[in-house]
């Protein structure tokens, strides 16, 4: 709506400064539920290890293990995001997508590298190495999430928004292609 109202420069500076301070204050006051990133790290490590077992062993029970790992990750993600929402009275799509679903660059790269390493080690029956890769992937994933949260606190407006449907579709397509490649290699 156009108006004839024009604030003075000092009024404009005050309004902008006040708005920025309130955004930064809100972001600074947000609290993460206990063991937020720790539980995400464990859930991702579990999911990576069970996926490696499922793809490397290739029997019915191993596929059930793979499905159980996915369920564990989904359960932890839902519980922690619900706790965050209840604790703060705030929902941030960026947190769900980038920190928990791992679409942040560090998280997705850690996950991809760890999954490839864990499955490869599983095929060679080097299960200790599968465990190491899974743990490293979980830690990298959680650190990526923590990094996103720090960036959000520094600039909430730039980081609060969800990924677009097209970006999510691209991630899902890449993930599906990766699984198909791993299955083909097996």
């Amino acid at each position, binding site marked *: 709506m156009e*108006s004839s109202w024009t604030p003075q*420069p000092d009024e404009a500076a005050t309004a902008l400064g006040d708005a920025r301070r309130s955004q930064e204050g809100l972001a600074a006051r947000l609290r993460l539920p206990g063991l937020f990133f720790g539980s995400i790290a464990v859930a991702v490590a579990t999911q990576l290890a069970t996926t490696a077992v499922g793809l490397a062993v290739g029997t019915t029970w191993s596929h059930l293990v793979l499905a159980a790992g996915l369920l564990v990750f989904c359960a932890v993600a839902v519980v922690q995001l619900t706790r965050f929402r*209840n604790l703060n*009275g705030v*929902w941030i799509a960026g947190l769900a997508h980038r920190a928990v679903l791992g679409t942040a660059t560090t998280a997705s790269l850690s996950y991809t590298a760890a999954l490839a390493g864990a499955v490869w080690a599983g095929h060679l029956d080097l299960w200790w190495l599968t465990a190491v890769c899974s743990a490293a992937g979980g830690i990298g994933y959680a650190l990526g999430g923590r990094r996103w949260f720090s960036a959000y606190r520094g600039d909430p407006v730039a980081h609060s*928004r969800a990924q677009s449907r097209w970006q999510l579709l691209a991630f899902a397509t890449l993930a599906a292609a990766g699984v198909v490649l791993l299955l083909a290699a097996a």
Partner: protein
Amino acid sequence: MAEFDLNLQSLLRFKLLSLLAAVTELEFAALRDELRVSDSVLSKQVSALAGIDYVRSRKGVHAGRRTTWISLTRTGRRALTEHITALRDTIARVDPHLR
């Protein structure tokens, strides 16, 4: 050149929309506490902004009790962005370094 939005002339409304731009959805009581206003003042502002499609409100549950969740609409985000640009332009005319 960006234009000022008469609907955001009130500092309270401008701050309300700025807070909503920093999140996806904010619970009524959390927004009230951030703005340090009463329930009735916030309710009135939210209704006015919802009437011009700047914010959206929906009933939901928070920590086991019924409450209202408020979010910024696409129209609201566009209006806020343009208003901020107009404010920055005003400052820049006096001191380009402050933009």
